[in-house]
């Protein structure tokens, strides 16, 4: 197994790449290797983002770049049994399950499979050589490596991830779930890369979960490119349930063709430092993007959501809604940038970010940013930061409900709205339950954390009428 241990500075990473170039490129086709060289050059120009960059003003990577991490350039020889390590909160939910363990795609039979209906799914690394035409056409085409140092770094180093191709006119009813697990007794630096391609009139629901099992320091710098063909639709759910010693960076790129639809929903339940960037290019008329997010953070956690929606052509629509509850000393950032190009008439764009701060030391920075170059458009935005309504709290408590449960009911009412946006009933119920568990401090991550002990056991209040 090829590996190295180092503190990830810019120079160190560049020489690390040179040292392991052969291993990193071992599954490449020429265009991938070319991209790597180009991306490494970009990274050597930009380096890691610092707070001097406007978009990084409120998030600092300094502490995340202090420890030494292990880098692996070949898969682990010992392949564990997926079922014994898999503990995702939404398991048993009907999905086709794919797993990534410590950055490497896990498979039982073959690394990449072509199904009867033409769908291809599996390891990206295996797909390089198996489907070079698709790779050449799509890989690295929307991921922005010139300005985004982290995407550049990922492009240079990434060796594995998930690859999904849905051909024209194929509708996949059953959601595909990808679980990215970190389970290792040492600090690890991972750079997963995913590529999702939807042909014309196709449909896919994709659930991406970031989970950790061991609680060592980790740094995940992931990048996903999503191509949504004409009249196709993608539902992209991202669940983040990481321990407090993890740094998670996700750069998600979406390109929407004519009359296509995207629903993206990012749910952050736990993590140390989380930075999610979503770039949505509405490049075909009639395309529509709905970008939702929920973050529930406490202790010293930090979550930063950056959304960039680009209305490139006329008649496109976007709707953004992010909500967050910030407890203890945690902090949150929301930056919503809507860009409307010069000729993108009849654009409709809406953006909303609502936050509840539970303590005096919790912080949030929210910044809507509308950049409009067309004159016949409808754009609006709104942001709120507040506390739980004292009138509502008094009302609930006057009926005998304790302070903790009264707050729980109000927090759940606030957060639950994002779960109602989930189209698949089963998934919606699971996530709803997860929100409740998280608010009660009962998620597995919380269970194992010594810092966050459960005092006063709350009384159950959920009662689901549909189940009676």
């Amino acid at each position, binding site marked *: 197994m090829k590996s190295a241990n180092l503190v990830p500075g810019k120079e160190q990473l560049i020489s690390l790449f040179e040292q392991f170039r052969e291993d990193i490129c071992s599954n490449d086709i020429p265009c991938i290797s070319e991209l790597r060289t180009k991306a490494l050059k970009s990274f050597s120009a930009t380096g890691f983002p610092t707070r001097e960059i406007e978009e990084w003003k409120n998030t600092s990577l300094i502490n995340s770049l202090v420890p030494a991490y292990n880098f692996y350039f070949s898969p682990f020889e010992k392949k564990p049994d997926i079922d014994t390590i898999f503990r995702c909160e939404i398991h048993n939910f009907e999905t086709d399950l794919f797993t990534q363990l410590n950055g490497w795609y896990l498979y039982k039979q073959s690394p990449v499979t072509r199904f009867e209906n033409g769908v291809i799914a599996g390891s990206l690394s295996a797909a390089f050589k198996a489907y070079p035409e698709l790779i050449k056409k799509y890989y690295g085409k929307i991921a922005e490596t010139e300005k985004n140092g982290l995407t550049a770094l990922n492009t240079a180093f990434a060796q594995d991830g998930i690859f999904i191709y849905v051909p024209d006119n194929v509708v996949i009813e059953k959601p595909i779930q990808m679980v990215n697990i970190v389970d290792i007794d040492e600090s690890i630096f991972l750079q997963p890369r995913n590529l999702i391609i939807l042909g014309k009139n196709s449909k896919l629901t994709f659930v991406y979960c970031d989970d950790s099992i061991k609680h060592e320091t980790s740094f995940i710098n992931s990048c996903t490119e999503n191509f949504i063909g004409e009249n196709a639709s993608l539902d992209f759910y991202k669940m983040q349930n990481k321990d407090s010693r993890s740094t998670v960076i996700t750069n998600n790129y979406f390109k929407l063709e004519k009359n296509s639809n995207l629903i993206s929903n990012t749910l952050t339940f736990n993590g140390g430092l989380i930075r999610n960037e979503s770039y949505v290019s509405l490049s075909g008329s009639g395309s529509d993007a709905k970008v939702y997010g929920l973050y529930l953070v406490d202790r010293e956690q930090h979550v930063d959501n950056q959304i960039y929606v680009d209305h490139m052509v006329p008649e496109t629509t976007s709707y953004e809604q992010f909500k967050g509850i910030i407890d203890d000393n945690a902090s949150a950032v929301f930056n919503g940038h809507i860009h409307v190009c010069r000729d993108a008439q009849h654009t409709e764009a809406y953006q909303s970010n609502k936050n509840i701060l539970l303590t005096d030391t919790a912080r949030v920075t929210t910044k809507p940013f509308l950049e409009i170059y067309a004159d016949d458009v409808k754009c609006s935005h709104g942001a709120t930061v507040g506390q739980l*309504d004292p*009138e*509502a709290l*008094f*009302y*609930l*408590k*006057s*009926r*005998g*409900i*304790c*302070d903790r*449960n*009264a707050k729980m*009911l*109000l927090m*759940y*009412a*606030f957060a*639950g*709205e994002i779960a109602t946006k989930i189209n698949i009933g089963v998934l919606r119920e699971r996530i709803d339950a997860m929100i409740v568990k998280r608010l009660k401090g009962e998620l597995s991550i919380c269970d194992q954390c010594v810092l966050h002990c459960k005092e006063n056991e709350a*009384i*159950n*209040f*959920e*009662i689901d*009428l549909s*189940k*009676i």
Partner: protein
Amino acid sequence: MDPLLEIKNLKVSINNKKIIKGLDLVVNAGEVHAIMGPNGTGKSTLASVIAGRDVFTVTEGEILFKGKDLLGIPVETRSREGIFLGFQYPVEIPGVSMTNFMKTAVDEHRKYKGLPSLSAPEFLKLMEEKKKMVEIQSNLTNRSVNEGFSGGEKKRNEIFQMAMLEPTLAILDETDSGLDIDALKVVANGVNKLRRKDNAFVVITHYQRLLDYIVPDFVHVLFEGRIVKSGTKELALELESKGYEWIKQELEK
């Protein structure tokens, strides 16, 4: 036996403004008291202070409930001990369903009494029973607490919650305001069905109208932070015909 509620020389202020200026009241089990009086004389303040709202400061006096000092006890404990406040302006709480709300409340009351939580079917049966009792037909219980309810629905919902929690002392703060005569009857019927020998009601109202349906044992007139006149139900009729000016003039004599 101790009276259910005993208020002695109560003085209450908010932001240094005196609102209740020495009030005495005794309510025994089985009684219905009406408190009347013009606007801004401290009726709602009295109700809020008994329920435990902390924006008010009690500067003097005491409130005893079943012989125990009530001041300093948190609002939720007062509720579990048997005090219920019917709000003049029930709060809308989007996203919290009536079912979750009431299930939580009922379970916390039961826990306080050392009883196990109700199962979901048991709870739903109880809700249906009480809905019938207060003549709620709609499935208001699936909706968010008071959200989008009409004025009448909100007041009915207060009576419904009272029926669910079966308090020993219910204070209804202008539950009749804004109700048409049919809704008023429904609310009054609900109260009458819940009247027992071991509980009591304090009904705060502007108008005699409600007292045609909820017949009080005692009527008190609250004026400038004090109870200035007490009597039986006839006093309410007298107030209705003579107006509050009459009380003012009597006081000036």
